């Protein structure tokens, strides 16, 4: 590197990894087209066993980790989930289960409650049986509705998550009515984040600006309705913004993800970033991973930044945006997130939005050109033979 610019700070010693996300498995009964899991998941190594996960929990908690997400894949696919929850609870974690609900019957929810599970976030793919089942390539709508009732019965706050995209964003009114009927306390309308399978299927999933604005309007009106309280979060797709999101509050600042094969990542999509050797919990302690590993230190501070981020006064607020998005669009993870309109690559985002804004008189030829690819082990193997 040349002479350092005066306003480039050395990477600070980070605080503890307050947020720990365990992706317990890539196995999943659903095959959602908008999943952020890596498209090559079928070729990742074997899953960690119970003892490894318990050790990860103990080591991370000792460093100060306190919020725990259990995700996947479908975490209920692991039959040691109850054991993992019990140990996490004993250690003092606040435990969030992020689930499709498939596999959650009364026996298991009772055991999870007894083990100390704090919170369940249940995903729906749509308000209608047809669309939910189509988007996840399964027949699960009725099962999920039963699970929603179980969540109520076991006195959990009902938190519904629906990932929005071109094919379901016009159903926001119906989705909110469904959530209301189910007695949801919180609804997260999360526009798709385009990584993994969602990136692969992006041209079919990205909504038009008009669709997004209409959905926001419907959400606003629904918030103002009288009746029982229900908190609604509407997460705007960042492709429609002019400044990037402060992704993970900067890589390596508070988030730590452990992938099913034990790979430690500063965000759940970071596996894709080239040139970084991420450590594995099979061979490294959480402490050495978090504080000493090169890949976790790489994107701390701002010495890694390029222009226009490097000299930008907003770099302390958004940290240059998302490294994975920068890499996906520009081929270089150190570039500015092209969502930012100061990025020389911003046109790549606006062009994608322009394509989505075009009226789709003949949707069929498009679909034939590039079919939606469902997230299945077979498709994963086909993409990465």
């Amino acid at each position, binding site marked *: 590197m040349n002479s350092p610019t005066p306003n480039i700070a050395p990477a600070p010693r980070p605080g*503890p990894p*307050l947020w720990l996300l365990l992706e317990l498995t890539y196995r999943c009964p659903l095959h959602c087209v908008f999943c952020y899991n890596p498209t090559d998941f079928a070729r990742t190594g074997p899953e960690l066993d119970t003892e490894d996960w318990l050790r990860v929990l103990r080591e991370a908690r000792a*460093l*100060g980790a*306190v*919020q725990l*997400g259990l995700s996947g894949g479908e975490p209920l696919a692991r039959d040691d989930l109850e054991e993992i929850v019990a140990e996490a609870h004993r250690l*003092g974690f*606040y435990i*969030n289960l992020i689930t499709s609900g498939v596999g959650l019957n009364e026996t298991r929810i009772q055991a999870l409650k007894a083990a100390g599970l*704090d*919170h369940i*976030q249940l995903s729906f793919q749509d308000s209608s049986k047809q669309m939910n089942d189509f988007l996840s390539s399964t027949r699960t709508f009725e099962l999920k509705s039963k699970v929603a009732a179980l969540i109520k019965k076991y*006195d*959990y*706050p009902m*938190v519904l998550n629906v990932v929005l995209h071109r094919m379901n964003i016009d159903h926001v009114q119906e989705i909110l009515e469904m959530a209301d009927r189910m007695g949801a306390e*919180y609804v997260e309308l999360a526009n798709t984040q385009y990584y993994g399978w969602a990136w692969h299927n992006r041209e079919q999933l990205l909504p038009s600006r008009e669709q997004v604005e209409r959905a926001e309007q419907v959400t606003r009106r629904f918030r103002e309705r009288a009746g029982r309280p229900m908190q609604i979060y509407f997460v705007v797709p960042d492709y429609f913004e002019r400044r990037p999101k402060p992704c993970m509050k900067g890589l390596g600042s508070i988030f730590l993800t452990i992938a099913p094969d034990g790979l430690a990542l500063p965000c759940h999509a970071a596996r894709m970033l080239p040139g970084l050797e991420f450590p594995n919990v099979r061979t490294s302690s959480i402490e050495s991973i978090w504080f000493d590993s090169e890949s976790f230190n790489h994107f701390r501070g701002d010495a890694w930044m390029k222009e226009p981020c490097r000299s930008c006064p907003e770099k302390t607020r958004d940290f240059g945006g998302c490294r994975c998005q920068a890499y996906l669009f520009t081929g270089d993870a150190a570039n500015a997130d092209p969502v930012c309109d100061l990025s020389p690559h911003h046109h790549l985002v606006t062009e994608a939005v322009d394509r989505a804004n075009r009226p789709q008189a003949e949707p069929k030829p498009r679909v034939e050109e590039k079919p939606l690819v469902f997230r299945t082990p077979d498709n994963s193997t086909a993409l990465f033979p």
Partner: protein
Amino acid sequence: MTDTPISVQARPAIERGFRLQWEAAQNAHVLLYPEGMIKLNGSAGEIMKRCNGEASIADITADLERSFDTTGLSNDVMAFVSMAVAKKWLRIPA
């Protein structure tokens, strides 16, 4: 929303789905809730840890004044409890 004033006889409790705990790594009480965390300052932590659904706001104030050997905390305690109820960190059981 119209705020009905909270009585000093009210017995605030931590809201359902929330958990208060001491975190040595952060040297603070934190309030944990679904996918989130609030780090409390010293006085907020001292008030919150007394909100067990049994002690009234008057009891909590008296206990704090005794513990810290001071007087005149009632306005501060009431202001914090009102804010925490509005933010749904605390609830007032009927």
